[in-house]
C-alpha cells in the first residue's frame, strides 16, 4: 500500500516545483489531489495528453504540483480556457479544478454555460463552503446561519447546491463526493473523466482553518466526522423522507445521461461547411 502511494507520488508530482505546498496542515485539497491522480493513474491516461486547469484560490494552486500540462488561470475563468484548449485540440483530456466561489460566484456564468454546451470536459469542484485563501469570507455555498469574516452576525443568504445546479444546467454526468469517502471519490472522479460530455464532480472538502474554526469544527477530524454523519448515498436518499433528509446531503452519481458532445457536433458542422463554396 505504502509502496503504491510512493510510486504514484513519484510518477505524478513535479520534482522541480519548490515544495512545501501552500495548503494548511490537514487541508482536504491534498486528499482531492490524491484521489485525482489515482483516478488518472487507474485510467492509464498519458501525462502528455492531459491538461489540468484551475482558477484562483486554494484550489487554484493544485495543478502546479503535478506533472501534466498545467494552467493556473484567472478567477472563475478556468472553464473558458479549458473550452479553448479542448476545441483547439480535442485529443487532449482536459480537467478543470475549481473552488466553490471560483465556479459558482465569479465563474457561475461560465459554469452553467459549459454544462449546457456539453463539451467533453471534466470539472472538479472543491467545495469547502468558504473563501479560504482570502481569509474566510462567505461564498455561494456557505450555509445559512453560519459565520464567516464577512458574515460576523450569521449568514443570511442561502447556499447553492453545486451538483443540482450542474444537473439543471445540462451536464452529462454529475456526482458528489467528500474527502471522507475517499475510495468512492476515486471512482466518481474516474467515471467523470471517462464520460463523454461535460462532467461535474462536486467534492465536499474541509477548510477547518477558515470555515470550521468559526463554526465549531476547528480541526480536520471534526469536519470529517461532520461529512461522515451528514452524507447519504444517493441510493439510500431515495428511500428517505424529506424530513429524514433535512440537513443531509447526497453523495454518489446524481446524473449520468448520454447526449452528443460539442466536439462531435462541431465536426458535423465542419463536414457540412466543407462542401460549400465561398460566395462572391
Amino acid at each position: 500500500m505504502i509502496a503504491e502511494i510512493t510510486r504514484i507520488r513519484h510518477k505524478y508530482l513535479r520534482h522541480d516545483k519548490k515544495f512545501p505546498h501552500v495548503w494548511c496542515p490537514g487541508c482536504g485539497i491534498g486528499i482531492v489531489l490524491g484521489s485525482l491522480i489515482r483516478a488518472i493513474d487507474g485510467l492509464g491516461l498519458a501525462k502528455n495528453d492531459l491538461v489540468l486547469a484551475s482558477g484562483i484560490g486554494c484550489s487554484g494552486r493544485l495543478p502546479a504540483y503535478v506533472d501534466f500540462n498545467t494552467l493556473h488561470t484567472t478567477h472563475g475563468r478556468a472553464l473558458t480556457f479549458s473550452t479553448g484548449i479542448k476545441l483547439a485540440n480535442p485529443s487532449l483530456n482536459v480537467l478543470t479544478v475549481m473552488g466553490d466561489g471560483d465556479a459558482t460566484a465569479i465563474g457561475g456564468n461560465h459554469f452553467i454555460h459549459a454544462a449546457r454546451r456539453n463539451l467533453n470536459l471534466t470539472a472538479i469542484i472543491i467545495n469547502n463552503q468558504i473563501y479560504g485563501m482570502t481569509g474566510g469570507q462567505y461564498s455561494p455555498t456557505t450555509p445559512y446561519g453560519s459565520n464567516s469574516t464577512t458574515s460576523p452576525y450569521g449568514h443570511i443568504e442561502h447556499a447553492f447546491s453545486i451538483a443540482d445546479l450542474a444537473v439543471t444546467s445540462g451536464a452529462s454526468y454529475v456526482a458528489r463526493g467528500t474527502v471522507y469517502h475517499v475510495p468512492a471519490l476515486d471512482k466518481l472522479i474516474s467515471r467523470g473523466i471517462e464520460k463523454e460530455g461535460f462532467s461535474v464532480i462536486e467534492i465536499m472538502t474541509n477548510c477547518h482553518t477558515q470555515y470550521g474554526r468559526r463554526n465549531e469544527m476547528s480541526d480536520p477530524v471534526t469536519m470529517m466526522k461532520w461529512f461522515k454523519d451528514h452524507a447519504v448515498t444517493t441510493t439510500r436518499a431515495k428511500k428517505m423522507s424529506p424530513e429524514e433528509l433535512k440537513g443531509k446531503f447526497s453523495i454518489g452519481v446524481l446524473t449520468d445521461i448520454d447526449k452528443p458532445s460539442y466536439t462531435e457536433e462541431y465536426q458535423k458542422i465542419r463536414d457540412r461547411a466543407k462542401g460549400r463554396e465561398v460566395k462572391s
Partner: protein
Amino acid sequence: MARDQNGKTRLLQGNEAMVEGALAAGCRFFAGYPITPASEIAELMSVRLPMVDGTFIQMEDEIASMGVIVGASLAGVKSLTATSGPGFSLMQENLGFACVTEVPCVVINVMRGGASTGLPTSPAQGDVMQARWGSHGTHPIIVLSVSSVHDCFEITVHAFNLSEKYRIPVVILSDEVVAHTREAIVLPDRKKLEVVERIKPSMPPEWYQPYEDNSRGVPPMASFGDGYRHHVTGLVHDAHGHSTQRPEEIDAFQRRLFRKITNGFYEIQMTKSMLMEDAEVAVIAYGSVSRSALRGIRMARKKGVKAGLLHLVTLFPFPKMAVSGVLRQCRAVLVPEMNLGQISREVKRVNTSSKVEKINRIDGQLITPEEICERLREM
C-alpha cells in the same frame, strides 16, 4: 467575397476584410460575443472557419471569449476575438493574463462612440488609452490601428505575425466607419504573403524552461500536448513557469516582457508618410481620421500650405522615432482625433517644446477634410 486569392478585385466591408486577413494569416479559431459594430466578424467567421477545419464558438460573454482564445492558442492554434468598447472592457482581465503568460492572440476592437453603452452605431477613437493600459499592472502590449478596407486585411496579417513572433497579444483598433465602409480591395496572393509562426522548442523536453530568457527575450513556446509538459500561471513566475516571490526573479521577468518589445521596436513601429518631403506643417493621424486628414492636406496644398501626413499604424509601443522626425521637420503638427486628445498627448511627450495642435470631436461624427484644411491654413 473571396472565392480565390488570385488578385481578383472584391468589394468588401472593413469587418469582412479583417476576416480575410485573419484567415490568410493562419487564424483557425474565433470566439466572440455579439456586439455592434463588430458582429459581422463573428458571423463571417462562423461561416468560414469550419470550411478550413477551424473552430468558431459564440461564448456567454466577452470575458469567456477572451479566455477561450487564450486557451486555444495554448493548444497551438492562432486565435482571434472581435468586439467593441463594452466588450473590450470585459476582456481586459484575460488580456492581461495573455500578456503575462506570453500567449499570442489578436483582439479586434471596433471602436464606437461614448463611454458605457455610448453610441453603438457611431465611430469614435475613445479606446486608445484603454487598449494600452486597460488591463491592470505593469505589462507591455502591441496596439495597431486600421484606416481602410485594405488596412483591415494587411494590418490583421501583421497583427498575427507580430503576436506570434513576440508572444504577445495584439489589439487592433478599428472604428465603426472603417468597419462598415465597403471598398474595392485586391487580396494579395496567399503564397506571396509573409506568415510568421511561433517558434517551438527544439531541445529535449527535460531541458525546456518555458520562460527562459534568450537574446530576443522571447522563449520558444510549446503547445499543450507537444510533450513539453509545463506550468502556465498568471502569477509572476520564474523561468520554469512556477510562481516566485524572489525580487531578482520578479524584476528580471517583468523587464524581459518589455525588453522583447524594445528589441523589436523598429519592426513593430509602422507608420506611413505622405506628402512629407517638403512639408512645413503636418497632420499626425490614425484610423478613419487619417483619410480625412489626407484629403484635407491635399485641399490645403492647393491653397499653398505645405502640409504632409504621418499616418500612425502602430499606436503602442508609440512610434516616437517617426513622430520625432516630423516634429523636427515641421513648425507645427495637428493631431485630429475622435476623442479629447489621447494620441496628441503621446505626440507632445516626444518633444514637449513642439507646437502640437488638436481637433477633437466627440459627437459621434467624423472629422471632415474641410475642418482639417481650415486648421492647417491657420497654423
